[in-house]
């Protein structure tokens, strides 16, 4: 097994002015499960394909372990693209379906059998090894396909949106299976998805990309608690973080009738470019309902209540119509999301007063988009 290093790796597609992946620097530790996530077209697949050897690296390097593989052909990189279209062969036993690539490579029979048995144990397929694929369930067949990659014991597994063709239920199931299997095998894995929930639930660490640029890399908790910039703040988390544009005056962040005190440290880190403005981020679950007149409280008109049993979310907007457009969230422009007590949800059309819980607001510079110390 081995680590993976992107060292200023850049890919510019022929005929394009801007790089699809721009000087990517990223280290994936030995045995780690790293998820590349970001909106469509941000360069995730291009990054993965550079690692696989399918895309040329225009500048920079790619290393697997200590080995520079930038100019090495895909089949010589000792990687496996998992969940590609693996056909199962009807006349071959499960064991032969798993081991035939080793047979082609000339691996001795005894060793093939041993590796297949080891993989089968991990995959819970031991008692099926001598059967034909036809006798297996859908899930077991999927594991045989996985087994084919495992027996080769590659240095790195690559997966590009492997779950995108599955229906919602099977997707959640398979997600857990892949994650736990990877932990048992301890094979370094790079996984691409556009789905941040998938990223948060599967990855040891997550790398967020946008427009070919790495935005932040960290554990799911780090990404969630301390997003480095406005983009990551809005992208990670579901429902998404609310982001508001506030005026700074009198040591407070002000928007219509709302005045939120700011610390000295935050105030000091603002610059002239910020033009006496600040971007505040607050997650739906960082809001408490309160009453009018409480310090920092703001009124929200309820458009829709989404009840999920254990949770309820209010989708609404700032009651003050002129100020409403200063706030956005994953629900859209002028939209705010608030988590409320599911046992006492408000009604559509109600106005609820909410307040950001002490210490749970995120501060960003409007000029640079970067997180401010707080």
């Amino acid at each position: 097994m081995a680590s993976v290093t992107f060292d200023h790796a850049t890919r510019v597609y022929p005929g394009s002015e801007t790089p699809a992946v721009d000087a990517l620097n990223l280290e994936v530790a030995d045995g780690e499960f790293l998820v590349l996530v970001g909106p469509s077209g941000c360069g995730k697949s291009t990054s993965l394909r550079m690692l696989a050897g399918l895309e040329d690296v225009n500048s920079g390097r790619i290393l697997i372990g200590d080995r520079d593989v930038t100019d090495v052909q895909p089949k010589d990189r000792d990687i496996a693209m998992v969940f590609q279209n693996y056909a199962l062969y009807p006349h071959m036993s499960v064991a032969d379906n798993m081991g035939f690539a080793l047979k082609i490579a000339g691996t001795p029979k005894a060793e093939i059998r041993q590796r297949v048995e080891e993989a089968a144990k991990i995959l819970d397929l031991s008692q099926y090894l001598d059967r034909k694929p036809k006798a297996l369930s859908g899930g077991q067949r999927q594991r045989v396909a996985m087994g084919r990659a495992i027996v080769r014991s590659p240095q790195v597994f690559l997966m590009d949106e492997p779950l995108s063709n599955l229906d919602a239920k099977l997707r959640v199931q398979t997600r857990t299976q892949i994650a736990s299997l990877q932990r048992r095998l301890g094979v370094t894995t790079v996984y691409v998805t556009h789905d941040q929930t998938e990223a948060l639930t599967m990855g040891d660490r997550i790398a967020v990309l946008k427009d070919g640029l790495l935005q932040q890399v960290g554990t799911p908790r780090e990404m969630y608690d301390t997003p480095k910039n406005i983009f990551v703040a809005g992208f990670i988390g579901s429902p998404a973080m609310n982001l508001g544009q506030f005026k700074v005056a009198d040591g407070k962040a002000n928007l219509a009738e709302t005045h939120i005190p700011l610390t000295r440290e935050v105030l000091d880190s603002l610059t002239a470019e910020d033009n006496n403005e600040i971007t505040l981020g607050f997650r739906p679950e960082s809001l408490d309902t309160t009453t009018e007149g409480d310090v920092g409280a703001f009124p929200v008109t309820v458009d829709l209540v989404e009840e999920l049993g254990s949770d309820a979310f209010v989708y609404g907007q700032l009651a003050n119509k002129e100020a409403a457009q200063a706030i956005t969230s994953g629900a859209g422009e002028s939209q705010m999301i608030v988590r409320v007590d599911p046992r006492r949800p408000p009604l559509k059309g109600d106005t609820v007063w909410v307040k950001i819980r002490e210490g749970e607001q995120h501060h960003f510079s409007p000029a640079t988009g970067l997180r401010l110390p707080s």
Partner: protein
Amino acid sequence: MPAALQITAASPDPALLDLPWHIPLEDWPEDLLAALPRGISRHVVRFVRLSGRVIAIKEIGESVAYREYALLRDLDRLDVPSVVPVGVITGRRAPDGEPLDSVLITKHLRFSLPYRALFSRHLAPDMATRLIDALAVLLVRLHLTGFYWGDVSLSNTLFRRDAGEFSAYLVDAETGDMHPQLTRGQREYDLEIARVNIIGELMDLEAGGLLRDVDDTVLVGEMLVQRYNELWAELTEAEEFSSADRWRVSARIQRLNQLGYDVGELQMTTDIDGTTVQIQPKVVDAGHHHRRLMRLTGLDVQENQARRLLNDMDTYRVATDQLGEDEELVAHEWLSEIFEPAIAAIPRNLRRKLEPAEAFHEILEHRWYLAEKAGHDVSTQEAVASYVSSVLPNRPDEEAILGLDTATLRAISDTDTEIGVQR
């Protein structure tokens, strides 16, 4: 409010609406189906008779269905040998409201022979080589147009007879991607996938006792890599020679033509003192003979068939002493005097045996055989008569089933080939 069936097609056939879309494909009534052999697949695929032809229906997720449909349309537009897409149907529901998978519909490729049928018969000695050659030609052609296949296999290829050789057609574009140009890594990876898949598929036939006349499956897989690399080099590599050897420019073009390629652009550079010349083909288009025959006669046949027909046309030109005549006039005459009468002489009930151009190729072969035996020339007319009475009736019916015994057919057919890992 029941969701409506949605049909996306360039020219939808209303008869499509009569098919039982509310039933999972697996359970469609036998009487609708055409029992033709297929390759291995993860999805359920069925052949269905519709408006006097056969269509192939594949159950597959909606987004993938649209993607594959679009890719097959692109390939069709680019004139790459592939199955022709008919359309996509989404919004299927069972009577109880349960949603059913979308389907991708393609035209069944007439006279196509899936590899499981081909390798399960006694092969002519070099049949495996010819099939692999055909696949190498297809893969080079796809790569030249910027298509990365991602799942090259014998199951995803169909073969048609092509004047004694074979032509390969792409049947499964699900994992493909169109690029302006492929990187070497993409080409090499496609080749590696092909190699492993081919060997796996042959090992499978071997395990089922269905493989005839192939001893070393690994060797067959490696042959593909070798043939691909040879062809790729001939079509793309730079060649350097002294400026005295300028004949090598036209020699290269001629060689490419013989291989079936037109040269769209040839780059020629000299060094500063002009003693060496370097040439490199930049744009080559497959289908040299195909296009020439099409232009001259309007016949739309495969590359080797076209080569064969053109040869016969040239022979006719010499034999009728028309070397000075306009090529198009001679072609027209050959068509109405030789080709069309030969095809017309094949009785209607024997026409499903072989495609017309392939039958003509066999007639030419037969003519040569008769001439050998007789020790003098035999006219095409005589050859046709003899071929129709003594050869063709004994040929398997290739448009329908392929002269396989029923046990073999069962072994390579239906339920056996669908072992999806999809669900």
